[in-house]
């Protein structure tokens, strides 16, 4: 049972290729993640799948419906929470929901019942008569998710659902997304540049960079592919270490931001020898840490760079400001 089928989907803006011939299949009931840095092409992909953007080439079907041949058919069966805010600030929470329900032609009684239920679910029922412009970022996000579910879509797109939210709200939303998926069997496709989010929520992940899918599998499989363990070394000589270090039990090493990430077999066993090698060659070492590979390491392994959290943090702040009140 395939919920989404994508084949060589491509989007070009002028000469620039934002999404470059990507292909994947998502099964019904899956939570599928598109993980990638800013500008990777995540939103562009979602926009094409939700019929807001015409693909330059390639094909895609959502719930078996061709996204180019039957746009209305696709639109009826999907729900979407956009990356950027899309609420009417001058309307109340209830009115925003009601507007949506009317657009999807949900009969009055069912509409009112569902709005009540959903507002309860996202804990906004006591604010339902407040104008959205008085809401915090987290409240807006929760309202948008409730709205995306109002017409009971079988596929839900979440574009960076927890962008800029505090840890507590994020956790809460994660729980909520998982519950939705399990109790209602909704297929969810979400984009994120948070590693922990992808790890926590997604059954499968496609790592996307510069418009291309560079790896796709379950989080555990992806981590296994990096192999064994990871030792991260902070050092002023990081470039030399990355270039020179070698041993039969070392799979590889990547240098980034004054650190070297060394992938190796059974780190506990080999760490003493590794430290001895450092000493022999006279590298200055600031700190060493051993851990199991994370998605961060997977990303580094495939792209040779990290999704820098501080960079992401800065963009989040800018975005949140843009999402905030503008009068």
């Amino acid at each position: 049972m395939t919920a989404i089928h994508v084949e060589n989907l491509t989007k070009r803006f002028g000469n620039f290729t934002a999404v470059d011939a990507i292909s994947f299949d998502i099964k019904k009931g899956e939570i599928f993640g598109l993980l990638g840095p800013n500008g990777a092409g995540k939103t562009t992909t979602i926009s094409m799948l939700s019929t807001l953007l015409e693909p330059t080439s390639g094909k895609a079907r959502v719930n078996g419906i061709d996204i180019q041949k039957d746009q209305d058919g696709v639109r009826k069966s999907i729900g979407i929470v956009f990356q950027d805010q899309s609420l009417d600030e001058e309307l109340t929470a209830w009115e925003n929901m009601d507007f949506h329900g009317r657009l999807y032609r949900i009969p009055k009684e069912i509409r009112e019942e569902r709005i009540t239920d959903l507002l309860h679910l996202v804990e906004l029922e006591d604010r339902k008569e407040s104008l959205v412009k008085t809401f915090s970022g987290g409240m807006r996000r929760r309202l948008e998710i409730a709205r995306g579910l109002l017409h009971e879509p079988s596929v839900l797109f979440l574009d960076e659902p927890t962008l800029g939210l505090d840890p507590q709200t994020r956790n809460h939303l994660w729980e909520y997304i998982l519950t939705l998926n399990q109790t209602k069997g909704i297929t969810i496709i979400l984009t994120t540049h948070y590693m922990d989010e992808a790890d926590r929520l997604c059954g499968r992940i496609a790592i996307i960079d510069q418009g291309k899918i560079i790896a796709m599998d379950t989080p555990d499989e992806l981590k296994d592919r990096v192999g064994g363990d990871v030792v991260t070394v902070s050092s002023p000589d990081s470039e030399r270490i990355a270039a020179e270090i070698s041993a039969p039990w070392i799979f590889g090493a990547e240098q980034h931001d004054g650190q070297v990430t060394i992938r190796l077999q059974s780190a506990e066993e080999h760490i003493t020898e590794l430290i001895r090698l450092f000493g022999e060659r006279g590298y200055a070492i600031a700190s060493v840490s051993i851990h199991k590979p994370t998605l961060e390491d997977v990303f580094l392994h495939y792209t040779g760079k990290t999704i820098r959290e501080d960079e992401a943090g800065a963009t989040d702040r800018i975005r949140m400001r843009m999402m905030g009140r503008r009068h």
Partner: protein
Amino acid sequence: MDIVYTLWLRSVKRYVRSKSRIVGSLGMPVFFLLALGFGLNSVVQIPGGGGEDYLQFLVPGIIAMSVLFTSVFSGIQIIWDKQFGFLKETLVAPVSRLEIMLGQTLGGATTAVIQGAFILILSLFIGLKLTTITGFVIAFLFMTLIGICFAAFGIAIASKMEDMHGFQLIMNFVVFPIFGLSGALFPIESLPEWVIPLTLIDPLTYGVEGIRYGLLGTSAIHPLVCLAALGASTVVMIVVGALLFRKASI
């Protein structure tokens, strides 16, 4: 029809809530009415008129002005929806763009007619003498047509604009000329000859004359000609607006 109503309802709700906008956009028409009406009333003699004074002559023009500005502005408002992201919510729904466009147009026209009605009521207090109820109805018919025509015009413009930067440009080089050429402030016969053709291709001219016929019982252009010309312009604007909005990107 449900969808058109949904969009209409939203426009009207937003309008009713924006007290400052309601009062703000009454400012200029009221200023024109008072300053020109009272200022020039004793100075200006309307040629060929049956003794009507300038204030009476001016009222229909200012009502039309109020409807014009409010409707163009409400059409252009979809640029705000674009910038605030709300347009995406509407466009990703399984509804046609034509329905969205019509709902937006009718919503804008409704608020514009209400703004015009404010001026009309105000005018009754400062000396406008109503002739008949039929005349009153005729005036509202023309106000509605102006509202629809120019709300659709605003949407057509907004579909071609990326953001609000071009707004001043549109106001100064499109909307003010439409107002100025329409015979809202001066009788058409008294205009220089080379201006008259421009006046006659301006749809607002027929709206102003139509309202004038309704409220004063006389007009420079026959009311049925006004109705035909303004009606045709309205249809054209809706078609153009709908076509451009269909192509508009988000």
